[in-house]
């Protein structure tokens, strides 16, 4: 043991000597983080990629944010009022908001940013249908004039996941939404260090010294964004074993997305702590392509709601019950609109009932082409479970193996499965994406304007529209129940349960914020 300690200290001395020779000795507090992927696109409005959203939370700020209870709270906004008729919203920005180029954040910047976001994001587009005018009252106050009342405005402005309405300087927000921005100035708690961005290697963010956090304690994405480190480095490490070794050795401080099979090893490592930082977790979903048989028939789709057993999927993919939860609520267990309505008898493997529905449907033996991504550990075990359940109820299933990127390309093809199209696949969403009928991407049933799978359901669209127009929370809940009851007989997709991704953090790290999106304010690093 003495030999080991001695040799370790010699090695450490060598490292320090190396650092001194290179002039690298300093007392900077750096939080080294391994994110789930490389940062590729630095425009969180141009793409819906999660990494770009995460980048957005570093560099930009939002007008409103959600807390850990899913409630919308002011973030850049100091005060706001809604007129009695619900047609006028007046907002005032907090004092001291500055962009990274030290220019103050103004109403002009806010309005320009919301216009760009509203042209790109589905929920933003919906909100803009209610907004007749956005008026700049003065530098720090602005007004929304609505053409009819809606409960959507604050929900949309506090939308936590892609695309998030981040606020940019007006000159940058003037960029066409179809083009990427080329200047990276925000007013968020971190400054993007463009020169240190090495694609495939790392991205660096320095603490924005002039950032003024809110006075309230941090709570999810809401409250004060207090930064306690000088710099955050997102380090690209692809190999799961190397990530764990690097965390154990103190070379990195946080792993956003570790492989579940390494968790027992990490639990036993005294240098690593495990936290569940995202209380909403993630949701597995089975997506139908409704353009082609057999899933153009709602009875066949409903049969799968009976045939599938959430527990079977969750055991296959996650394994440990500590990290998953069966949940029949489409809009995520634990949210204010969680309900089992419509799914009470479903999602628990009722094969007899599913078989009966298949017989009723007149299924003619058309094979189901189920895409099977073999390169993503968290998705790879799921399609065989779906195949087994479908075969039990009499469907013919062809499992086609491919890498995820091939699947991403193929899922946008509307051709018949035999001509390069598809019938079904399984994916996973960050639960906050699916926490509202308006934000749930797969619930959009607007035919060719819907996401891949292209469901076409006027009733669902009408109910979503009613939901967006309804300002009263109680009445919104009644609409949610109706939506679920409709989806339970004419499914757009099937929710296969929630799973959780524990975040491993170094033993010397504290203050990690609980949030549905990985954010890096709050963290403290002891020497």
């Amino acid at each position, binding site marked *: 043991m003495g030999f*080991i300690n001695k040799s370790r200290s010699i090695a450490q001395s060598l*490292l320090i000597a190396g650092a001194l020779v290179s002039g690298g000795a300093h007392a900077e507090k750096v939080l080294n983080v391994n994110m789930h992927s490389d940062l590729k696109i630095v425009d969180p409005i141009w793409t*819906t990629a999660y990494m770009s959203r995460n980048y957005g939370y570093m560099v930009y700020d939002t007008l409103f944010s959600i807390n850990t209870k899913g409630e919308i709270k002011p973030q850049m906004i100091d005060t706001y009022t809604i007129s009695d008729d619900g047609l006028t919203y007046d907002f005032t920005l907090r004092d001291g908001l500055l962009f990274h180029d030290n220019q103050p954040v103004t109403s002009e910047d806010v309005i320009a940013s919301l216009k760009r976001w509203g042209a790109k994001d589905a929920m933003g587009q919906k909100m803009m249908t209610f907004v007749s005018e956005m008026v700049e009252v003065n530098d720090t106050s602005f007004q929304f004039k609505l053409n009819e009342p809606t409960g959507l405005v604050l929900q949309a402005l506090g939308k936590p996941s892609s*695309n998030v309405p981040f606020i940019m300087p007006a000159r940058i927000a003037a960029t066409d939404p179809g083009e990427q921005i080329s200047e990276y100035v925000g007013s968020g708690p971190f400054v993007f260090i463009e020169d240190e961005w090495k694609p495939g290697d790392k991205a660096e963010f320095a603490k924005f010294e002039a950032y003024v956090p809110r006075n309230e304690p941090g709570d999810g994405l809401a409250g004060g964004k207090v930064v306690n480190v000088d710099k955050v480095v997102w380090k*690209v490490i692809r190999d799961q074993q190397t990530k764990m070794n690097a965390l154990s050795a103190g*070379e990195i401080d946080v792993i956003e997305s570790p492989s579940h099979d390494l968790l027992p090893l990490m639990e036993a490592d005294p240098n690593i702590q495990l936290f569940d930082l995202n209380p909403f977790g993630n949701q597995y979903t089975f997506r139908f392509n409704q353009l082609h048989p057999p899933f153009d028939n709602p009875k066949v789709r409903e049969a799968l709601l009976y045939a599938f057993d959430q527990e079977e999927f969750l055991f296959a993919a996650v394994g440990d019950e500590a990290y998953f939860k069966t949940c029949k609520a489409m809009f995520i267990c634990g949210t204010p609109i969680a309900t089992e309505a419509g799914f009470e008898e479903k999602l628990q493997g009722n094969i007899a009932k599913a078989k009966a529905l298949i017989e009723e449907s007149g299924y003619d033996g058309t094979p189901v082409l189920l895409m099977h991504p073999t390169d993503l550990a968290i998705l790879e075990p799921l399609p065989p479970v779906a195949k087994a359940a479908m075969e039990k109820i009499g469907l013919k299933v062809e499992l086609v193996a491919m890498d995820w*990127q091939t699947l991403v*390309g193929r899922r946008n093809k509307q051709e018949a499965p035999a001509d390069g199209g598809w019938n079904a696949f399984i994916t996973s969403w960050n639960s906050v994406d699916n926490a509202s009928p308006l934000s749930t991407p797969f619930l959009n049933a607007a035919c060719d304007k819907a996401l891949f799978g292209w469901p076409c359901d006027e009733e669902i669209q009408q109910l979503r529209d009613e939901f967006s127009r309804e300002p009263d929370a109680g009445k919104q809940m009644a609409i949610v129940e109706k939506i679920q009851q409709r989806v339970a007989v004419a499914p757009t997709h099937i929710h296969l349960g929630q799973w959780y991704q524990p975040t491993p953090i170094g033993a010397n790290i504290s203050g990690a914020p609980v949030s549905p999106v990985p954010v890096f304010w709050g963290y403290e690093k002891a020497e």
Partner: protein
Amino acid sequence: MWSYLLKRVLAVIPVLLVVTIIVFLMLRLTPGDPAANIAGDAATTQDIEKLRIELGLNEPLPVQFAIYVKNLAKGDFGESFYYKRPVISMVADSVEPTLSLALFTIFFACLIAVPLGTLAAFKQGSWLDRIVMAFSVIGFSVPVFVIGYILIYVLSVKLGWFPVQGYQHIGDGILGWAYRLILPSMTLSVIFIALIARMTRTSVLEVLNEDYIRTARAKGLSQSRILIKHALRNAAVPIVTIIGIAIAILISGVVVTESVFVIPGLGLLTLDAIQGRDYPTVQALIFLFSVVYVLINLIIDVIYTLLDPRIRY
């Protein structure tokens, strides 16, 4: 000699043209859609189509190819679909780590493998020979990532002698640069030690049976002089060939080692670009690798003439 070199350099042009066409077509005919990847999971078909137009992917293949070749002729490899940076600058950033790893590995491998192979040949049938042969079998058989994990576990995690991962640019300090390269080079050199030692042994064995070696022994030259000056030099042609090929392999990317030790080199850049269907980056990298292969083969040919004056072109 000079006319030979000129001919060889000119012969590169059709090779690169064929490579350019094949890579261009393979990328476009392989399943996958860069626009869909870039747009993200919540993008609609209309969003993706707009992006395809922006990236120029909606144009017919011959038009896309003509644009690509036209830009290439001007030395413009294009911009990465994802990073919106010139591909050439991304490739340039990745060259140093890969080249450093390749040179360290080859240095380690030659330093160990050539003397070992020579001694094994000289002591044919001895325990030393058997150990070298056994090592070379193990070196060929054990996957690189297994060797990497074992070395990391013992030397980094348990003993703390080396960092688990990471690369330091030479400009940030030469000591740190060299220190961080030791473990990945050791890992990667195992297979090349096995390869070069085996090749050296075979070549030297062949030479040791030649008449001029017997003559040298009869003249009373020392064993070391016979081995180094007469045997090894005459056995050097195949050894140089294998070292050259090893360098080409190392430069064109050692994905597993770069991944395990987190070295941001050409191998990982290639892997990421292929996975993301980043056509301009893949095209530039394959073009670069083709040039490297051709150049290294040319250099090997030139070295032949220096080692063996009988070789003439």
